[in-house]
Every structure is written in structure tokens, then in C-alpha cells.
């Protein structure tokens, strides 16, 4: 069984990898297995964790859960074409709640905290995290303020990016591009690590070539 399991894993791994060459039956098979198995996986997970775990186990103690059950039931009315439109109610509820929750979360964490962190005395080393706080940190404190300021100007919608305003916005896009460059570099790092992990499986666990 252990041999079979390893070969099955390797078969599916290579099937997905074969997509790099071109679309082919081996990939199509692996893809179909993947879609089916993962849909089943999430179905089972949601069934046990959410329906049973959240509702069935708790409705005696928490009458509020019935509201959720009612919303879920309304959602299922989709299956009855004539009154399917009732499913808009739970959707309206979810969209409304999400709007309210996200409004406050992002106002606090993305705006308030980030503005607070940007307002720092210039030419100081208070930004420095870690042991070395020299000129790098002093220049850095300036860079953070300038970068945040100009970057935000770039996102202005209601003013033509011309003249001094346009120049500021252009400096802003420079910073955003540096950010994307860093993201790009880190993404390369991340993806290569994952590939290393997979090749470690193929060469180590499966074929036993490396330890």
C-alpha cells in the first residue's frame, strides 16, 4: 500500500507538471481528479465544520444560530425556480454585514494605524528596527514619508495628473514600482522554495536519491 501511495502521488505530481509541456490527457486526468477530489474535500469540510460544528452542536445553547439556519434555508430556495429570488435576502444580509465590518476594520488598520506610523519626526532613527540604525535609517525616515505621501497622490482620481501635481504623482508611482519590484523578488523566492519542496519529495521521498 505504501508503494502504491507513493507512486500514485508521483503519478499525479508528474501529471500536473506535464502541463508545462502542453495540455495533454495526463494533465486532463489529473485536473479532473483534482477538481472532483477537492470539491468533495470542501463539501465534507463545510458539512462537518460548519453545518454540524457550528449549527447542530450549538443550537440548543445559542438560539441565535437559528437565524443562520433560516438564512441558509432561504439560500437553498434557489433550487425552487419560482421563489428563487428570495435567496437575495441572505445575500443582502451578507453583503451588508461585510460592508459594515470591512468599513471599520480597514478604516482602523489600513488608514488610522498607517497614518499614525507615517507621522514620525524626520531625520531621526526611530524607524530603525534592529541593530544598525545609522545614516540608512535617517535617510529612510525621509523616504518613508515622501514615498507614502507621493504614492497616495498617485491614487488621486479627481485631478488631472499635470504640472507639479503630476510630477508628485510620478514620484509616487516610482515608489509603488519599487514596492512591486520587492514583491516580485519575494515572490520568486517563495515559488522557488515551493518547487524545492516538491523536488525534494520526488528525489528524496519517492526515488530516495537524496537524504
Amino acid at each position: 500500500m505504501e508503494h502504491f501511495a507513493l507512486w500514485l502521488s508521483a503519478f499525479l505530481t508528474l501529471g500536473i507538471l506535464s502541463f508545462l509541456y502542453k495540455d495533454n490527457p495526463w494533465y486532463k486526468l489529473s485536473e479532473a481528479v483534482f477538481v472532483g477530489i477537492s470539491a468533495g474535500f470542501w463539501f465534507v469540510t463545510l458539512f462537518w465544520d460548519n453545518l454540524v460544528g457550528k449549527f447542530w452542536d450549538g443550537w440548543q445553547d445559542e438560539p441565535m444560530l437559528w437565524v443562520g439556519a433560516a438564512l441558509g434555508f432561504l439560500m437553498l430556495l434557489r433550487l425552487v425556480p419560482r421563489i428563487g429570488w428570495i435567496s437575495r435576502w441572505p445575500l443582502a444580509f451578507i453583503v451588508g454585514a461585510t460592508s459594515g465590518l470591512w468599513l471599520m476594520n480597514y478604516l482602523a488598520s489600513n488608514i488610522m494605524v498607517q497614518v499614525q506610523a507615517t507621522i514620525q519626526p524626520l531625520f531621526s532613527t526611530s524607524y530603525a528596527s534592529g541593530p544598525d540604525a545609522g545614516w540608512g535609517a535617517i535617510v529612510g525616515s525621509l523616504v518613508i514619508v515622501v514615498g507614502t505621501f507621493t504614492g497616495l497622490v498617485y491614487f488621486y482620481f479627481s485631478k488631472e495628473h499635470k504640472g507639479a501635481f503630476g510630477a508628485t504623482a510620478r514620484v509616487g508611482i516610482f515608489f509603488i514600482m519599487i514596492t512591486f519590484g520587492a514583491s516580485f523578488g519575494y515572490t520568486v523566492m517563495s515559488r522557488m522554495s515551493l518547487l524545492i519542496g516538491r523536488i525534494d519529495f520526488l528525489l528524496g521521498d519517492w526515488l530516495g536519491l537524496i537524504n
Partner: protein
Amino acid sequence: MRQEIPLLITAIVGIGFVIQYFIPHWPFSRMSDWFSDWFSIVGACAIILGALNLLKMSIEKTYRRKEDWGYAAVIIGTFLLMTVIGIAEGRGFRNPGTSFDWLYNYVYIPLSATMFAILAFFVASASYRAFRARNFEATLLLIAAFFVMIGRVPVGHTLSSFMPVGWQLSDLASWVMTYPQTAGQRAIMIGIGLGIVSTSLRIILGLERAHIGGGK
């Protein structure tokens, strides 16, 4: 009526969830907890719709013998296999040693890990094909990427070990990450925050109503 009631629900619920942020007192303190439970339950109900849709499409394809119908049959088979086993296993379906766990470890994990790892190849081909020093902005992007990529691995140390400490590639990578990168990141974050506030308000006010559909 088909539009008004959902609009009203969205508005009332939206405002309610804004208010709860400021009031620690019961029942406001419990609102987001309740919402999370309700969302979980609705999600669990909704996936029945999704699963039925997947099955319907695949059965149709198989039944009509459309192109590649065999793969549609595989989808049906593997979906039912995983679902039946998972439900039959009971609450402990995730415990090590169950059949569900076996399928998870030897079918699901290799597939999703490989799909994840395929990204390495796509990243490389995108680097070759699309990251061009087309203009000053793009050049900045490439320079930042270069410092980060080379500075974060030991080879960067080897290449720049002749430089004084503080000016080696790894130090430059750290500096890029800590200052200009953070500044750009923060501008994007604040922008996103403003965008979300504005979109949320538009939804609560009923100006964006795509999710509600049409009225009759």
C-alpha cells in the same frame, strides 16, 4: 418589492455592523460572532448548490458524450468518492489513519502542492518574457527586484563580501525592504482603505446594487 427589501436589509445590517464597532456592550459585542456563525451556516448550505451545479454540468457532459466526457465522468466519480467517504467517516474524518486522510495525503496534497510549485516555472517564464526595462518605472522595479533577489540569499553575501558591512547586497536588500518598499506598500494600503470605505458606503446607501439583481 424584490429590490426594496434586500436594499433595506443591506442598509440596516450595514449600519448595524458599523455601530457595533463602537459599542462594547451586549448585544453589539456579540454581533460579529453571530455573523461569523451565520455566514458559516449559509456557506455550508450554499455549497450544496455549488456541488449540484458541478454534478449537473459534468453529468450533462458525460450523458451527451460531449468532447472530453470521460474526464467529466472522472470528476463525478472522484467527487462522490471523497464526499461519501468523508461523510461516512463521521466527525473524526480528519484524524490520521482514516480513508479520507489517506486520500487527502496521497491525492489531494500532491496535486495542490504541485499546482503550487508549477508557479516557480511560470514565475521564471514571466521574468524572461515580461519584465522589461521599458521605461524608468519598469527599470526601478527590476532594480528593486534584483537587490531583493540577490540580497536575500547567501550568494549575495559571497558576491559582495568585499564591501564594508552596511553596504553589502544583503544590507541593501534590507534597506529597500524597510524603507522605499514599506512606503509604497503603505500608500497602497491607505488607498485600499479609502476605496473600501467608499465602496462600503455606496453599498450601504444602496447606490451599488448589482448583488441584489433586478426588480419586477
